[in-house]
């Protein structure tokens, strides 16, 4: 298909989105990422039954925490796609990149002069 999506995105593969923890989502912002989104299988289609539903709850928890600490909960999102939706994957990547670009850089980067916790 040779689809293009923004090169600002770094894909991190996990066996199932059920593996994604709140702590993983918070760490990316602590390290200076501007945004993050979790791409899980369509709801009801999880091979492990509820991995993607758990991921959604964790994303929501991360959103609440990011809002509370002033980073902005909107910077983390949950998206559900099937493995056959390549074009939609690329489209979502563009949409989310644009949305995060509108929000501006991670406020922590400005405050810490680009030096983020390792």
């Amino acid at each position: 298909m040779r689809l293009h999506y923004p090169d600002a995105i770094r894909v991190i593969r996990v066996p199932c989105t059920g593996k994604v923890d709140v702590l993983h989502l918070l760490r990316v912002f602590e390290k200076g990422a501007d945004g993050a989104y979790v791409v899980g299988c369509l709801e009801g289609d999880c091979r492990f039954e509820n991995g993607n539903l758990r991921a959604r709850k964790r994303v929501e928890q991360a959103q609440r925490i990011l809002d509370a600490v002033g980073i902005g909960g909107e910077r983390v999102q949950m998206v559900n796609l099937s493995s056959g939706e390549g074009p939609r994957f690329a489209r979502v990547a563009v949409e989310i990149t644009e949305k995060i670009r509108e929000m501006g850089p991670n406020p922590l980067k400005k405050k810490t002069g680009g030096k983020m916790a390792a």
Partner: protein
Amino acid sequence: MIVAEQKPIEEIIEMLKDFDRILVAGCNECVTVCEAGGKKEVGILASALRMYFGNQGKKVRIDEVTLERQCDHEYLEEIRSNIDQYDAVLSLACGVGVQFMAEKYFSTPVLPGVNTCFMGVTEERGVWSERCQGCGQCILGMTAGICPISRCAKRLLNGPCGGATKGKSEINKDLDCAWQLIVDRLKEMGKLDTYETLMPIKDWSTERAGGPRKIIREDVRL
């Protein structure tokens, strides 16, 4: 176990805003099981605090530790060598752990990160409910293993009040009437005659009303 829930992050930030070196201390026991103050919650809270203070442009050192227990000397001693490195400790243990740490490290502020709620069970993941009030004189043998002290709003000892309706308590339609549960179980066990036995007036002096309690056992003392 002792059941607690984490304080709102805004309240925690308000408590910590004047400190520059903070240790977030979890506990591996009850608060880990009720997902309020274990290693994972310590990690999440510490990360959130680092981001908050970083966003405020304030350089604050936030370290993490999770002790096996905070209600025993031996585990609290593990942080003695580096407690002086911190301006404050945010303990995610129950109120017992917070106090014991405060007693031990007298000059360091020890602040509570959770609200300690009750002694209870995990009904299902994410649902905890009260089962014991530590009254000091257990009557479960008379009440089919169901405690009317902790599960009846009025702590009645001889049957339900007039407010129970269809097996539910009058204070909350979702709350089972403890005495309904007791009668049901006595019936199931074929011991309904126990229900006819009048319970004597309870001696409440062993309960919290008698003041702070203490147990001294010479047989196990060193």
